[in-house]
Structure formats: structure tokens, C-alpha cells
């Protein structure tokens, strides 16, 4: 599996392309250093790889912008695009969707039935579905927006704006913030083991780093309200 990162200057968001490495590469053991080193591959292996058809498939997560660079990248690598995952319906994460749909007829997966006036494949919290060769698990994390989703693909978490390195998504109300923290704690932080966090903005992180250092998830000490003490006297 290959992950490509593209920084969208429109809205300063992160767009990701997740691609396979082709049939012949997948059969090789990625742990064998001999296999990593192309020069050490035997001639029979090379001949086999030349003869067999390499189907390379890809998905896009949050097309905040679709420019010549991304299209050129997909075409140059001969990727068959299988779908688009939308973490949430905010302009800086879907701005390139219309352009992308004009070029590739691919399904859009989102927690909303419509994104940028385009019909989507509606997905639900906890659903596990296949997009091409990728198995995707959905976690609904409302707060930053009602349709905020986190996608898990193997050991990668595409968190959108719900959780970025060191921070959680901005919300309009304290209720929204509490909802977001609660969903993140129960669905994301509780995931066993470590994951690579690929957020919608800013640098990458790991789930263990977020568990320890995310300031939005820190337990805040409850500040005693002096007026409560006064009221208690009368209760």
C-alpha cells in the first residue's frame, strides 16, 4: 500500500491518495530486504513481473483540490480510481470533487447523502465496506460537523478535522465539543494498538501520541463555581 500526500493551498487541507503497488509487488514479502532491493531480484522474477498484468487501484480521501499535478500523478501511475472518501462536507475538503467527477466516474462515500450537490453512497457509523482492494471502517465523530467521519484503512486513520496532531476539531458550542471528545474517546482512542494518524490539516501523527499529548483530549480540572457553594447552603 502506498500513501501519497498532497497539500491543498485552497483551505490549507491535506488530500491523500491511497494506492496499491500492483499484483506482482503485493506477492513479494515486504519484510524481505532482498525484495525491497530491486537490483537483487532474480531475472526469473523480473521476467514474471514483466509478463503479468499489474492492476493498480487507488482511492482519494478529501479532494480539497484537484489540479493537474494530481491527475497527472494518477495517470502516470496508471491507477484505476475506485472511490472518494469524504471525512466531512466542508468546502476545503471537497472543493476538487466536481472536477474529479468530471474526469472519473467514481462513487463518493460520505456520512451525508449529498456532497457538493453530488449524490453519495451513504455510509453509517461502524460500517465496514470495500472500495476496490481497500477495506474501510467508518467511525462517526460528530462535533466539528454533524457528518464528521474517521476512516480506518489497515493501520491508517484518516481523521479529517475531528482530530489533528495535538488538537481536536473546532466546534460551535460546548455541547458539540463534549460530543466530539466523547466520540473520539469511545471510538478512536479506544482502538487497540497504534495507528498512523493522517489528519485533514497539519502534519501526521500516531494514535499513541494523540492519546498522550492532544490538548483537546486532556482531562480538564473542574473549576468550582463559587455561586454553587452559595446555592448549596439553601438546598
Amino acid at each position, binding site marked *: *500500500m*502506498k*500513501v501519497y*500526500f498532497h*497539500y491543498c493551498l485552497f483551505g*490549507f487541507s491535506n488530500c491523500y491518495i491511497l494506492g496499491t503497488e500492483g499484483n506482482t509487488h503485493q506477492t513479494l514479502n*515486504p*519484510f*524481505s*530486504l532482498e525484495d*525491497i*532491493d530491486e537490483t537483487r531480484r532474480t531475472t526469473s522474477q523480473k521476467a514474471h513481473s514483466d509478463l503479468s498484468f499489474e492492476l493498480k487501484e487507488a482511492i482519494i480521501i478529501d479532494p480539497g483540490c484537484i489540479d493537474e499535478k494530481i491527475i497527472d500523478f494518477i495517470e502516470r501511475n496508471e491507477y484505476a480510481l475506485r472511490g472518494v472518501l469524504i471525512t466531512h462536507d466542508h468546502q476545503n475538503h471537497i472543493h476538487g470533487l466536481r472536477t474529479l467527477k468530471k474526469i472519473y466516474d467514481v462513487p463518493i462515500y460520505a456520512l451525508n447523502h449529498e456532497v457538493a450537490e453530488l449524490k453519495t453512497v451513504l455510509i453509517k457509523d461502524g460500517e465496514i465496506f470495500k472500495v476496490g482492494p481497500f477495506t474501510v471502517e467508518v467511525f462517526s465523530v460528530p462535533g466539528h460537523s454533524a457528518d464528521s467521519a474517521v476512516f480506518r484503512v*489497515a*493501520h*491508517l486513520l484518516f481523521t479529517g478535522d475531528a482530530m489533528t*496532531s*495535538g*488538537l481536536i476539531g473546532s466546534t460551535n458550542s460546548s455541547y458539540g465539543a463534549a460530543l466530539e471528545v466523547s466520540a473520539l474517546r469511545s471510538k478512536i482512542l479506544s482502538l*487497540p*494498538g*497504534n495507528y*498512523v494518524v493522517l489528519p485533514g490539516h*497539519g*502534519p*501526521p*501523527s*500516531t494514535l*499513541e*501520541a494523540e492519546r*498522550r*499529548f*492532544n*490538548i483537546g483530549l486532556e482531562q480538564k480540572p473542574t473549576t468550582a463555581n463559587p455561586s454553587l457553594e452559595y446555592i448549596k447552603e439553601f438546598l
Partner: protein
Amino acid sequence: MFTLYPCAAGCGKPSLSGAKTCAQHSVNAELEAGRLIQYIQSQTSVKDLVCSGLRFSSIDFSHRRYFGCNFTNCTFTLCVFTKSFFRMNFFDFSQFSECDFSKTDFQFTSFAGSTFQDCTFEGSELVHVNFTGAHIIDSTFNDSNLYNSRFINTKIQSSDFIDCNVKKTFFIASKQEQVSFKSSNTAEAVFELEQ
């Protein structure tokens, strides 16, 4: 991007590239480190390598290109990374002492929870780099580009960020002692969360 294959011992940690166990459960971790160093030094471009939990001392990592490698929980002492090129690498919870990162090009890399003692990043590109939860002591980032990097919840002591580009760099909840931002565009950095 590296693949996380769990250690055969069942500890849940990632196994090293070319091995079935993690560094902790390896029969000879030093031998494993030596094997991976030999591999790195034989290449100009290193991809998807897992070296998690290993110790590296006085190793030359310089003048190479690294893509999607996992160096989490490693210890680097007196290592040289000058003029290296890093894309989407993970160095979380690692320890760096007296390491030279000058004139390196880091993009989309994570150093979350790492410790840096007497390290230099002078004249480097540190774009979209995650230093969240890191502890930085007696280190220099002078003349570097830190665009869109994050130093959230970071402890920075006796370190310099002189003449740096800190546009969209987050220093929220970071504890700073004897830190200099002289000639840096601090007005464009983020030191506090908007209410």
C-alpha cells in the same frame, strides 16, 4: 508507507524489516541494527523500512532519501542526518542526543513525544513536521523553514529559532525557557488557541 506486522512474540509492537520480531524480542537487537544500517548505507533511497525500537550510535544517515519509514522508539546518539530528504517518516517517542540534522529536508514527518538534546536543525526545511509532546533541550533550529509544523504541548529549553519561517507554526501549550525567536515572523505563528 511501511506496513505494521505485529511481533511474533505477541507483544503488539511492529516487527523489524526482514525479521519476525520487534527489537525488544529480537535475539540480538544490535545485530538487527547492524543489518539495517548496512542496508540503509547501501542505498541512496530507502523506502518503507521498519527500524522501530533500535539503538543507533555514531551512524551516518546523511545524503539519502527516506520515504515512509518507521523509526519510532529509537535511540540516536551522535548520528548525522545532514542533507537528507525525508517524506512521511515516523520518529515518534525517539531519543536524539548530539545529532546533526543541518540542511535536511523534512516534510510530513512526525517526531511526536521525542527528546532532542544538543541537536541542530540549522538551515533545514521542516515543513508539516510534528513535534507535539517533544522535549527539546539545548538545540537550534536557526534559519529553518517551519511552515505548518506543530510544537503543541512541547517543552523547549535553551533553544534557538533565530531567523526562522514560523508561518502557521503552532506553539500552543508549549513551555518555553530561554528560547529565542529573534528575526523570526512570530506574528504569523500561533501561540494561543482562539476562544
